[in-house]
């Protein structure tokens, strides 16, 4: 089962990722990104990360991306216009750079792990809500609190910015 | 949590409180809070004077685990009066800004108290990193005090002030970090001990560089000639309270740093470079005084006089004897009191006539006799008249310098002559003579609030000039320890070299 599920959802993720990057319309990009996130959630499940998978869907797909979508709709953002002239930077530097990055990362990953290190569903049960919660409120209590403050600040910041926007 | 922590953190609490309460009552609140802080700080005197050579109110708890940064505070005879001076001046600054500051009142007082927080912390910190933190904390409120409530060229002045100080303190930070890599701790007392016992073995050059890194940071703050050019600009542009705090307290941070850190930690380098530093100090004394003599602007004049006076402090410090060091520390306090008062008085004049040019005044004594008397006393204190505070400090510094190298005393004493010239000329041109019509029209005598603000300083001038012992003895004891430490280290190195 695992390899099939992996193949399916990895495929979806990659395709959606490519679509996200190549589509001109932000709504299309957003939807593809949601696709990526959804398939990643499934992969998380395969990796034994149930809680993160749920959080991925709820937080990323359910909240953050809604926000994106909402803003896109609010601004009624249309498709990007086709560039009048193609950027030299993108052509001569960008593409090779991205390819090189991919190559390097792939190489590093390959070099770091042999192929016989495998993933088997159910081998790792440390991803339950209980385990994550334990770690979150014991080991990572301070980061958690700090993050909550950060979120509070972000909320305030967003409110302030939005208010400014109103008048 | 002891009284010292209270004195350190009350200003911070007061700062937050001031931000919370409505602007209309911030003056009263700032006054009340700062007076409370001052009264609390008076409680420090007893225990410290009982045992001035050791650290009282010591508090040593971990602050940050890795790297090993500790909240280590404590005061001895050296820092005691500086803290008291800081806490005393804050309420006075609140008073003198009562009408002077009319916009963003709340923020002004909040920054004033934040400044107090930083300054008290600087004088109390015994952990190098903590010290650095407080050192930088002071920078922020002063930046805003000058930048928001200053005069026309305030932006230029603040930027200059900020960059100068930052340049120095970054050097210091580098040195602190280097010491950490060597000693594994930021704790000043531990580091000093390690250095003394030779467990941190600095090479000759390393010691020189470390010393210079610290010293330049402090020298900028002092400021030692030729690193002083930020000072006149900052003073001229600052609001009165800013000038007072800057001159009376912040400059002392530099002097204090030299005595507290440079001497005990790097005595060899200090001794080696002493002739150079004394040379700069002497140039500062004379050049500061001579340049002050030709200033058309009162605040600039006082600022240059500060350069001159603080040259004495540095000179005394690098005389490496009891008299010189005692005089230097005493001179810090004196300068705080008398120059602070001078800035206040100049501020009073500015509030009336809205000019800092000496030309704009004349014959003020006729219309404002009380102001004239107080200004006279302050002037006399500033030029080192016996029975007023500066004399004791100057005398000890010069005596110390004479013991170290008689030529230093000769050149330094020349500065004393010049100080009489510029102060008396300013006084004459401002207060004496016939009263021009606009002065008569604008300038009124000092009012009760202003009198209350400046009276403590005048009283201190006489008190410190006549009953010097009470102030000097704790300082002397603390200095004796510092000298002994640095001497022991030098002797040990010499023995090692043999």
């Amino acid at each position: 089962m695992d390899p099939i599920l992996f193949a399916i959802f990895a495929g979806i993720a990659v395709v959606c990722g490519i679509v996200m990057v190549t589509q001109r319309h932000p709504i299309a990009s957003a939807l593809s990104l949601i696709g990526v996130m959804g398939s990643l959630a499934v992969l998380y499940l395969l990796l034994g990360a149930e809680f993160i998978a749920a959080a991925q869907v709820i937080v990323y797909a359910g909240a953050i991306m809604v926000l994106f979508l909402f803003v896109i709709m609010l601004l009624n953002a249309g498709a990007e216009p086709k560039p009048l002239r193609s950027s030299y930077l993108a052509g001569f530097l960008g593409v090779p750079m991205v390819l090189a990055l991919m190559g390097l990362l792939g190489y590093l990953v390959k070099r770091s792990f042999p192929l016989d290190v495998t993933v088997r569903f159910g081998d790792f049960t440390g991803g339950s809500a209980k385990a994550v919660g334990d770690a979150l409120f014991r080991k990572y209590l301070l980061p958690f609190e700090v993050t909550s403050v950060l979120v509070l600040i972000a909320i305030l910041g967003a409110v302030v910015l939005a208010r400014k926007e109103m008048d | 949590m002891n009284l010292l922590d209270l004195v350190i953190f009350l200003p911070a609490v007061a700062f937050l409180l001031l931000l919370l309460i409505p602007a209309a009552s911030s003056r009263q609140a700032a006054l009340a809070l700062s007076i409370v802080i001052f009264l609390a700080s008076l409680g420090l005197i007893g225990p410290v004077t009982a045992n001035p050579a050791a650290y009282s109110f010591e508090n040593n708890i971990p602050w940050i685990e890795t790297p090993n940064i500790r909240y280590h505070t404590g005061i001895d005879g050296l820092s005691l009066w500086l803290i008291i001076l800081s806490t005393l001046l804050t309420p006075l600054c609140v008073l003198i800004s009562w009408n002077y500051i009319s916009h963003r009142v709340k923020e002004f007082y909040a920054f004033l108290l934040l400044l107090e927080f930083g300054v008290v912390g600087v004088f109390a910190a015994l952990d190098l990193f903590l010290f650095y933190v407080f050192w930088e904390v002071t920078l922020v409120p002063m930046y805003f005090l000058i930048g928001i409530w200053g005069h026309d060229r305030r932006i230029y002045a603040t930027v200059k002030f900020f960059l100068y100080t930052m340049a120095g303190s970054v050097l210091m930070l580098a040195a602190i970090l280097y010491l950490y890599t060597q000693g594994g701790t930021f704790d000043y007392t531990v580091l000093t001990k390690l250095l003394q016992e030779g467990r941190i073995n600095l090479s000759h050059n390393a010691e020189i560089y470390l010393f210079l890194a610290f010293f330049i940071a402090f020298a900028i703050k002092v400021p030692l000639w030729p690193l002083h050019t930020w000072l006149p600009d900052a003073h001229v542009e600052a609001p009165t309270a800013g000038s007072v705090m800057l001159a009376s307290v912040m400059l002392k941070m530099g002097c204090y740093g030299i005595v507290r850190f440079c001497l005990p930690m790097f005595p060899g380098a200090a001794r080696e470079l002493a002739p150079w530093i004394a040379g700069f100090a002497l140039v500062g004394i004379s050049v500061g005084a001579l340049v002050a003599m030709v200033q058309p602007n009162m605040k600039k004049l006082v600022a240059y006089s500060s350069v001159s006076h603080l040259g004495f402090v540095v000179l005394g410090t690098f005389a490496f004897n009891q008299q010189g060091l005692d005089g230097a520390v005493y001179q810090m306090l004196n300068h705080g009191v008398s120059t602070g008062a001078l800035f206040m008085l100049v501020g009073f004049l500015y509030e009336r006539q809205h000019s800092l040019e000496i030309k704009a005044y004349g014959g003020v004594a006729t219309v404002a006799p009380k102001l004239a008397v107080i200004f006279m006393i302050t002037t006399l204190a500033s030029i080192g008249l016996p029975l007023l505070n500066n004399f004791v400090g100057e005398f000890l510094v010069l005596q110390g310098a004479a013991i170290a190298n008689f030529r230093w005393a000769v050149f330094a004493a020349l500065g004393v002559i010049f100080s009489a010239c510029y102060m008396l000329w300013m006084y004459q041109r401002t207060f004496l003579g016939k009263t021009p019509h606009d002065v008569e029209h604008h300038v009124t005598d000092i009012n009760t609030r202003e009198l209350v603000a400046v009276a403590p300083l005048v009283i201190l001038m006489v008190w410190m000039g006549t009953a010097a012992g009470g102030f000097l003895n704790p300082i002397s004891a603390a200095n004796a320890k510092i000298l002994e430490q640095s001497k022991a280290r030098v002797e040990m190195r010499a023995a090692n070299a043999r």
Partner: protein
Amino acid sequence: MPPPPPVPLVAYLTLSAILFVLGVAGFLIRKNLITMFMSIELMLNAVNLSFVSFSYHLKQTDGHLFTFFVMVVAAAEAAVGLAIILTVFKNRATLMVDEVDSLKL
């Protein structure tokens, strides 16, 4: 039916790398502020996948925690970032990043 060979960890990591690079490419290619923002989210997701994979590999929960924090921070970032984008749009009536190249209006 013999069970298919298990999935190597490298596959997850490579997927993560691919997504990350796609995010980078998107950030470089796209001109729409919102899309660029989304590219960043994609990169974050790719990294999260790595975290979770490593967490699996090391049999420790910590990777999940990092992912969790990344999510929270991403949420905060989205809130502020989108508010900024709104303001930018309000002031310039465009979302094209090439036209938003000075801090002053």
